[in-house]
């Protein structure tokens, strides 16, 4: 479990990083928090020729809300995201990531670029219909969440591109629920729910190759208060809409049931209702 050899480039700015990635062709990899990359290197499952360290690039750790959208720099650490009050859904989701040591290093853009379908932040980006700002050899572009995730650990980013910023619209109401085997584990199933005006977006993590945006059709349009009945209907719709696989940690049927339960919890939070759990009195 030791990394194979690689060259190391400490980028001084975004242009420098993009140039270094461009020079490496498809052999370069960005080192940000390293929380996913370094284990993969240690297992020799990835063999980049060059690691481009973006941690010292100034100006990429900002957090501000403009016009109802949280603009976050690429290097915002999970700990900072968890601690901010500008975007409470992102804050809540970030608290579910790993442990303190992981959260203090891992970055927002790193998590999105890694595109783990069970990770929290990709689900939040999609639930909020957010987007990423990307810099590459031919300039900058903006990639919407719905276009960013192509499959498990596959994003629409080119090997020579880097995320420089993240746009997270701040929802009017939100909810987040997750079930993991242990504290800090990747979700077996997670649900991020966000309400913008009369539309409710529900995204399920852990049930597909990408964070799954539930297609609830007209049910997702809600006038006024989200009733407990509608919560139940939407949760059932979410369970119907996912097509999970069976693995070591649970069957497809189990994941489908968890989708319903986590959606119930997330929407209850969103609607300001008590979570539908049968607690002992």
């Amino acid at each position, binding site marked *: 479990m030791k990394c194979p050899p690689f060259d190391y480039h400490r980028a001084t700015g975004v242009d420098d990083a993009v140039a270094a990635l461009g020079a490496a062709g498809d052999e370069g990899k960005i080192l940000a928090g390293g929380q996913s990359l370094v284990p993969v290197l240690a297992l020799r499952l990835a063999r980049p020729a060059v690691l481009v360290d973006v941690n010292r690039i100034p100006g990429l750790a900002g957090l501000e809300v403009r016009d109802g959208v949280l603009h976050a720099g690429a290097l915002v650490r999970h700990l900072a995201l968890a601690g901010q009050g500008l975007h409470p859904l992102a804050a809540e989701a970030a608290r579910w990531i790993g442990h303190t040591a992981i959260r203090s290093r891992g970055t927002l853009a790193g998590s999105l670029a890694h595109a783990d379908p069970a990770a929290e932040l990709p689900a939040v980006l999609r639930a909020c219909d957010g987007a990423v700002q990307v810099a590459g050899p031919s300039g900058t572009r903006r990639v919407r969440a719905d276009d960013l995730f192509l499959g498990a650990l596959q994003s629409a980013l080119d090997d020579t591109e880097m995320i420089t910023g993240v746009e997270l619209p701040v929802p009017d109401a939100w909810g987040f629920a997750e079930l993991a*085997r*242990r504290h800090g584990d990747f979700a077996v199933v997670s649900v991020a729910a966000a309400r913008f005006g009369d539309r409710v977006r529900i995204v399920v993590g852990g049930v597909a190759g990408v964070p799954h945006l539930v297609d609830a059709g007209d049910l997702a349009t809600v006038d006024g208060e989200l009733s407990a009945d509608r919560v139940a209907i939407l949760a059932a719709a979410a369970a119907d809409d996912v097509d999970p696989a069976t693995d070591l940690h649970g069957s497809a*049927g189990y994941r489908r049931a968890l989708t319903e339960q986590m959606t119930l919890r997330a929407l209850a939070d969103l609607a300001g209702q008590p979570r539908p*759990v*049968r607690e002992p009195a």
Partner: protein
Amino acid sequence: MDHTPAAGTSVRRKEDARLLTGRGRFVSDLALPRMRHVAFVRSPVAHGRITGIDTAEALEVEGVSAVFTGEHPAIGPVALRAQSALPGYVETDQPPLARGKVRFAGEAVAAVVADDRYLAEDGAEAVVVDYEPLTPTVCAWAEPTDPVHDPVHEQAPDNLLLSRTFRAGDVDAALAGAHVVVDRELTTNRHGGNPIECRAGVARYEAADRKLTFLSGTQVPWIVRTQLAELLDLPEGNIRVIAPDVGGGFGVKAVLYPEDVALCLMAMAMPGTALKWVEDRVEHLLAATHARDHRYVLRAGFAADGELLAVQADVWCNAGAYSVYPWTAGIEPLMAGGLLTGPYKLADYRCTVRGVATNTSPSGPYRGVARPSTVFAMEALMDSGARALAMDPIALRRRNLILPADIPYRMPSRLVDDSGAYEACLDQAIATFDLERWRAEQTRRRVEGGRPLGIGVGLYNELTGLGRAASAGPRMAFRTGHDACTVRINPDGAVTVFSGVTSQGQGLETTMAQVVADALGVAYEAVEVRIGDTDQSLWGFGAFSSRQAVIGGGAAHLAGEHVRGKALALAAALREAPVEDLDLRGGQVYMAGQEKPIISLAEVAKVAYLQSDRLPEGFEPGLEGTKFYDPIRGAFAAGAQIAALEFDPATGEIGILDWVCVEDAGRIVHPVIVDGQIAGSIAQGIGGAMYEHLVYDDAGNLATGTLLDYLMPTAGEIPELRIGHVSTPAANPTGVRGVGEGGTLAPNAVVAGALADALGVEIDDLPVTPARVWELMHP
């Protein structure tokens, strides 16, 4: 001066100053001049013939100095052969590096020596091995009609490395006369030890004087020395094994591994060069010993009043690819058959145990050896019996417990139980737990709704400190009943203890210092303890079978008393006082009836070492002594755990609401260490019952190869544990009973029992996971 005994109080641990400030000295930290690093090439196939190994490219890798294979002249002649004269045991060989064929995925096939571990792994990648696949066997209890296509070892064409039947009384007659007969078929999940420090070793050989030094994170340095002497053909005195600070062991480091032997053989082929191998987590999960992959087919008969009349059992233990060295493939099956009946009285017993070779990592000792599985099995029988008899499950257990009046109780496996504290543990556990309150809550939820709640119980006996009459590893070439301890008073009156115990974090330096301080009559602070070095201490078999407090502690006590006698004799002669009137307390010698000491131990020591002119007639210089101790049988430690768990029908989530454990650790030397052992072992047991599961696919690939999939419990998963004690001193010099493993024995039974109790179902396999719970609630 305060002369409070050190034992019984939670004195500050001797080792904590270095361990808690990051100054521990672990093999992993060790750096020697010109040291080189080893990486092993491991088989990607579970079973296959090796048709070629090409090392040429690896030798071209920068920094690589050597590549060894199983056919290398330095390696080739050597094989590890776990020996036992037990009938029904088939001896097989394990090569240090695979020869001819590989028998499990992860087996070491070659070793690369390089300037650092990175380069060694670069070299290992460049070694090209060709395999011709053979049919793998993964499951140890395939239907008997399945032919064994390619046996793991040709000496065992049916893959059976060991079988033995334990027999007592007449099971068939007893079953025929039973009021109810219950049947259970159970399987338990496969675990790994996973100490925080994986295996590690540094070997260095000096050709001029044929001396080998092996620094190893082993639990058993003296066994390692003896076995290495035989395998390497060196005089035993030429080998020094040192176990410095070791970061956990749990049994997996009580094994001499092929990698250890390969490292030493390579060091001998490269004299003067220290070779270091530090196992990483992937290697550990893949190739350190596994455990608990068992199947139990059980039948039990009960009388109408609940008396257990008969147990008939067939047990299969997955022994893995090799008979673990030096313990043999019998380690789990023999323990399973010997202790299946646990704390329950039984006359009619028939149990056939089997150790079956498969193409998986070898099974070896792991905290609790087999008994987390057997306690699960026995308690499942108790719960089934209670259901069949419509009897309270705890009342049924009570009806059958070995009681103080039955002691010494000869178990049907002929082991002799000296405890009888089971009911005392159970009573205290039930009282602490407040069983009535939890039963009321359970009923309330059943009536009013709410998450189903279940109560699980596990009663167990931990056989600790095995003496020569019940030695670990029946019919092996050595008997593990004794340890030695040397107590030396230094010229300044301070005490150095050379003990044969080893420590993997459980504070043995502290425990030994407490015992010696009290036996000798000095302050705890005046005692320093040296452990883990075969050139310093005389002898110790090491850490396994919860033996060290009993046996090493016994030796420490005897050696302390012996030297105390010597010191008092010298003091008496120096002060012309009758020795029977003298007492040594707090490092001072007192005469009966006098408040002030007549001489200090330091003064006595000064005479003994430095002032031979003052030595009375008949006294030799020096002040030290060595004693061995063997408890002959051993000490059974009773335990009871009871817990309340709730299960979420919507998600399968499992909540542990309360967990109580009461154990009989005999006389307690260090209360915090003892509670730490119990808490840690329960946590490990909960891990095994709810999280940890090594899964192989049908081709023999390990599907849980990292800690992302092999889930270890963290502090976040373990509830507050309420630990209590009943203390019935054992018949050994310090009155202690071993405490290292007991906690692991019950959680399988408790968790499965609670789920069964909550849902009214039978739980036949483990682990109990949320997905599993959900499936049970949504059939």
